[in-house]
């Protein structure tokens, strides 16, 4: 497993080295002091230009992501394997309860265990990212109260650091598919799209909740409950078709419905292809992301005042 981590590091190092030449060019320009001019004044309006600043701070984003990845599994025995252990354990439980007792397996083209794992794994990754992103501002408050940088970098880094988990998780999933002799269909080319959609949803909600968490500690109590509740409201351990046709649009309001069903559809020969309702999920997901980013951006200037020392 650590091999994969090393690959990720090697890749990011290469990307970073590519950036070096550009930075050198920037250095030379900054020799002239008049190049750097900064005006500090009260901000009341939303300015999109500030979002561009995140790009200028991309190195910090890289370092914070790298820190989160490095620190995540320190002092654990199983390390990054925890990404697989949790959904595997849940898969066993649900296979017994839903697959055998509730006989959900009959309607599926694939074994229930694989079906459940292909839902539980992305769900776990999603809920983990969501929880980490929500808490990211508070756990980095010592940075926010001492140093200036675009605050959005903190939830972004915390979200990006989930990428290693994603890679490990999907290798586990591939092993499962080989075990059950399921060949991926051509639809697999859409898999990255669903993953991006999932990250966007997690990040969008993460933006909303992390900004609210600074002011309202209630968020800390809501999130674990929300994640649990949401899992059963999403077709993770049951197929979406057990819901009566006329209520399907309600389920589609949940952006994760489209994501989870889409991932399964792209991985193996699965009965339920994303239909019109998928675009409703997609729309809501994009809306959450954009509104979350705007809200976060509007609130970021008061974060330091709420943190204090």
């Amino acid at each position, binding site marked *: 497993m650590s091999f994969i981590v090393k690959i990720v590091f090697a890749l990011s190092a290469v990307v970073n080295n590519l950036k*070096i030449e550009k*930075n050198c060019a920037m250095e030379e320009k900054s020799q002239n*002091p*008049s190049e750097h*001019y900064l005006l500090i*004044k009260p901000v009341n309006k939303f300015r999109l230009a500030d979002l561009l600043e995140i790009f200028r701070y991309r190195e*910090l984003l890289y370092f914070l992501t790298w820190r989160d990845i490095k620190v995540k599994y320190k002092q654990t025995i199983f390390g990054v394997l925890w990404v697989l252990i949790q959904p595997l354990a849940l898969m066993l439980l649900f296979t017994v309860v839903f697959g055998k007792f509730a006989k959900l397996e009959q309607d599926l083209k694939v074994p229930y265990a694989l079906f459940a794992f292909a839902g539980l794994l992305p769900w776990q990754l999603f809920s983990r990212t969501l929880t980490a992103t929500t808490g990211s501002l508070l756990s980095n408050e010592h940075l926010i109260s001492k*140093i200036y940088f675009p605050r959005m970098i903190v939830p972004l880094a915390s979200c990006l650091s989930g990428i290693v988990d994603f890679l490990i998780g999907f290798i586990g999933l591939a092993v499962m598919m080989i075990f059950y002799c399921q060949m991926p269909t051509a639809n697999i080319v859409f898999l990255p799209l669903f993953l991006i959609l999932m990250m966007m949803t997690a990040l969008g909600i993460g933006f909303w909740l992390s900004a609210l968490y600074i002011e*309202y500690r209630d968020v800390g109590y809501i999130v674990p409950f929300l994640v649990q509740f949401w899992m059963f409201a999403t077709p993770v351990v049951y197929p979406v078709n057990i819901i009566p046709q006329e209520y399907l649009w309600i389920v589609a309001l949940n952006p994760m419905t489209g994501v989870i069903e889409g991932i399964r559809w792209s991985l193996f020969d699965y009965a339920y292809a994303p239909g019109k309702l998928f675009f409703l999920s997609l729309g809501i997901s994009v809306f959450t992301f954009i509104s979350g980013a705007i809200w976060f951006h509007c609130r970021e200037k*008061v974060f330091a005042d709420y943190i204090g020392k």
Partner: protein
Amino acid sequence: MSDIAIKVRGLGKKYHIGEKLPQRSLAGSIKNAAAFPWKVAKNLISGKAIDQREEFWALKDVAFDVKQGEVLGIIGRNGAGKSTLLKILSRITTPTEGEVELFGRVGCLLEVGTGFHPELTGRENVFLNGSLLGMSNVEIKQRFDEIVDFSGVERFLDTPVKFYSSGMYTRLAFSVAAHLNPEILIVDEVLAVGDAEFQKKCLGKMDDIARSGRTIIFVSHNMGAVKSLCQKGLLLNNGSVFLSGDIDRVIEKYSETIELYTNTSPIAGRTDRQGNGDLLIQKFDLINSSDNNRMINEKQIGFVLKYMAKCDLFFCRILISINNSVGECIIFMDSTTINDFPKQIRRKGKFEIKITRDFGLADGCYFVNIAVFVNEIMADYIQNALIFHVEKGCFYEGGKSPAGKGMCHVKQKWEYQAL
């Protein structure tokens, strides 16, 4: 225009005080939001407060200029607005009104070792911290060896910093900060950490940076450091500029304001004493002083001390320190060094402590601390028991004053011999 590095105009920062501020309740906000949805949304976005709470201006109408290459020291009592000003200058928080213009690349050091993660190794933390302070990856790589050399922890670079001693940790953290290369440097009390030797090293480094022609804003309670580093000073009081100008004048003014706020009520009524109270100082005064504890430097320095104790016939030890306005101890007196000090003293008594006339203090303001030990246990300790001013006079027989200003005057004998 081009020689100005920092320009501050009409700067103000308003906080809302009241119990609701730190964590506003969600229920209250939802109720508000339901009642006036549009208004609340607008206010939240613009960052205004919804409900009427007491306003507090941490800074108001602050204006000053800093020229290129100037070192400005910002001083003031706790709560004068120093930290708020620093936070605005470093863009951590936004001002409520006014503006700041910064001409040059800015580096901020509000703390040493911000972002150091205990699980990461020294090497990794150098990169993380450097990046947080605004250095690019390339810059950090270029200066990495210098940083490590300065910190002196090269043997432990690949050890997680959680196993570092606090001294090593601070040294590594400071050396990253010291190799930051901005045109404008904003520094908070970073020197308040580490041992004396390390502090000296830090001050030396700061001095180098100042000499290399960079603009520095330095906030500290350490008047000695401020005095040696800065040319200009800015004295803040209750959120506004009280005085700005030459550093010596500003420090002098500051010590006068300290005096205003220090407890100067008569000794007998002082409650800010420490010690077990077996002996209480009843009176502690300057002799040879005119009104308001002022004296001229040609007069003899001396004190009268009256005490009352709970027991009779005991051994006592008296310590007196005379500090200048910068907080440096000029004279420390210990009764155990005096040969004819009584072995036992009675329940009530009076001491007269006189300093020989060959010695005088430079003009300025002095703070006297006094402690009395009964049988080696601290019985009474009063900080700033006496504050007095020394004015210029004719200490030397000729009536002239020396050209420079030392900390004290000493009578001297010069012998000449032609060779």
